[in-house]
């Protein structure tokens, strides 16, 4: 299908090209919806409505069903997200070792609540229930880096590492 994102411009949108490759890769694969959504989100950073429509047409799955799947799983996002994703572990081990305090500190520091993104799109803050690094509790993840054995006063310096 043709690209609808930039009708004026004839050079193909690189994201659309990548998305096309994903469709090609999963053509005819049973149960491809979730991997396609995962890869589409890797390309766009979230799942824009247009992309969901495209996926629906391409995989011949009604948009309502696609939307149903997207909203079922915690991993999928319908809104743009920050450049850096902070995941604060509130699993059991972190809970008993003061994870909530860390979470509070970050919320105050950034001025956003759970699941929100800062206005400058620098950070998205999320709470999650256990990343399995219980030996280092309390733990947060910023992007793919894990920071463990935290205390509230270490938070600021960690956030400063991410632009």
């Amino acid at each position, binding site marked *: 299908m043709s690209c609808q994102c930039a009708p004026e411009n004839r050079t193909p949108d690189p994201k659309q090209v990548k998305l096309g490759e994903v469709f090609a890769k999963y053509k005819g694969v049973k149960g491809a919806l*979730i991997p396609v959504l995962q890869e589409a989100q890797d390309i766009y950073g979230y799942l824009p409505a247009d992309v969901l429509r495209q996926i629906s047409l391409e995989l011949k799955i009604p948009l309502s069903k696609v939307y149903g799947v997207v909203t079922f799983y915690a*991993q*999928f996002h319908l809104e743009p997200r920050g450049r850096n994703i902070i995941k604060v572990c509130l699993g*059991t081990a972190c809970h008993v070792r003061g994870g909530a305090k860390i979470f509070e500190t970050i919320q105050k520091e950034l001025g956003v609540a759970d699941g929100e993104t800062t206005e400058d799109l620098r950070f998205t803050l999320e709470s999650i229930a256990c990343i399995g690094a219980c030996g280092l509790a309390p733990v947060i993840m910023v992007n793919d880096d894990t920071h463990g054995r935290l205390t509230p006063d270490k938070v600021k310096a960690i956030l400063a590492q991410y632009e």
Partner: protein
Amino acid sequence: MPQYRHHILVCQGTGCLSSGSTGVLNSLTSEVRSQGLKQQVRVVKSGCFGFCMQGPVMIVYPEGVFYTQVQPDDVPEIVSSHLKQGKVVERLLFKDPETHKPVQEFDDILFFKRQKRLVLKNCGAINPENIEEYIAQDGYFALAKAVTEMTPEQVIEEVKKSGLRGRGGGGFPTGRKWEFAKGAEGEPKYVICNADEGDPGAFMDRSILEGDPHAVLEAMCIAGYAIGSHQGYVYVRAEYPVAVSRLEIAISQAREKGLLGERLFGTDFFFDIDIRLGAGAFVCGEETSLIRSIQGLRGEPRPRPPFPAKEGLWGRPTLINNVETLANIPQIIRHDGDWFASIGTERSKGTKVFALAGKIHNTGLIEVPMGTSLREVIYNLGGGIPKGKKFKAAQTGGPSGGCLTEEHLDIALEYDSLLAVGSMMGSGGMIIMDEDSCMVDVARFYLEFTRDESCGKCTPCRIGTKRMLEILTRITEGKGTEKDLNDLENLAQVVRENSLCGLGVSAPNPVLSTLRYFRQEYEAHIHDKYCPAGVCQKLLAYEIDPERCKACGLCRRECPTGAIKGAPKQPHHIEAEACAKCGVCLSKCPFKAISRGPGSRRPEPGLPAEVAAGGDEARVHPDSGSSLVH
């Protein structure tokens, strides 16, 4: 092949990676080169040793010296002193929590010494990204034996004889599950490895996949041969990126070596494995939800029967086993069922991996024979409770399980004994709590988790968990009534008996078990508006020590509710009714004059028995709920 004088294994599990083991590994590699030891020392990336809180860890062979909390700056000293001059770097050794003496060798550390590592045998011992190291540890020998010397029936017979039961929670006999899948009609059949480990506090599956991925792949092949399947899927959480990448490497190496794919070991048997990533839904650990998720649908469970063994993925017979269950299989086939059955207890065979976490010295992964006592795990392997605190409870089985108390310290850890006292084995998470942990808060925490993760398909779970959480929250905020306790118990029964899948059926367990063993804590919250452990925020009392207060006025100005009163040069005080318990004053006071504690009980410490038994509502509504401070 060069003759290495030393092999150094540097842990690259998620725990150690988080504490910076990549830097240590890089620095070690370059230091070994720059100090001219490249021909004599081999640096190996290894899987998880299980001692995550001491990370980054490394072990130097042949001596078996175990270094803990190694930072890149420590590496030059290790190389020049230990590797060159044979002098062990003492300050990096593990110190025994009791004696405070450094322990030099890996095997002498109680944490390791008291373990029986079968499933974790290769974790920390081999490079998980190199199939040859796995093969050198007799890897893929069991698969060869199965497909060339045994019939599928014989394979299943050995698994049945071993007495192995599912390690994911339910404890269903694995051999019988295989038999059902083999006997089921329909083609093709599928083998699924359930690696959607979601219990907060459990990370054994992740460590196995990171440290010994081939063991799981080999087991899936064996299962495929036994039930007549040619396609396997590993359903793994996307939150485990290291495990996913090790699995990908392992699958491609196994394909290259002809250990996955067509004509395995020259026979007609063929088998291949693909990875499916979970998308963040705890309920997908339930097998029917997991199957729907692989099919690209919302991961909602469906009633069983039909069981997946009969009607599973795409409606075909499907065998689903958990990671740890599978990791036992190659050894069972390599030895035999009787060998495995000789380990453990009458009805729980083999070993179990537990993830120790919470208020305990040695957090990490341990593997012990089934039937080991809780006391042994906590005090000998776990090194006891830090800071001289008292053991209060161990929560086993995560949000589906219950707690074990001091009276259970000598209980044998096995499926049936845990069920008998209202807990469960679950996947093996074990959270230790000390006197500073509030059991009502713990129950509330687990309910919050199950409420969030309830998929919403069935009403008892969707609404029941929400209502239970509301009641628990009320209690922790000091607004609970005696009726709440009765409602909570009734609701728990309804949710347990009527939910569609294991998530809902087991969701009330933490509540029921804390009510059973710590009812007096609930009652203290309700009747006395008092949190004995001093955890529940709304029930805490803030006090200013008049001796320490310098009357600077900082807290008074910062207090958002104006609860702090005082004049210049007069020690300040907090008016309890106005205090919102936000803690700002505590964090601002430069003289550490403000303290937070459980306050004092109201009306009287110690509860009369009739309050515990009956619902005398008039007396459980003390009209001034917040006056804790005097």
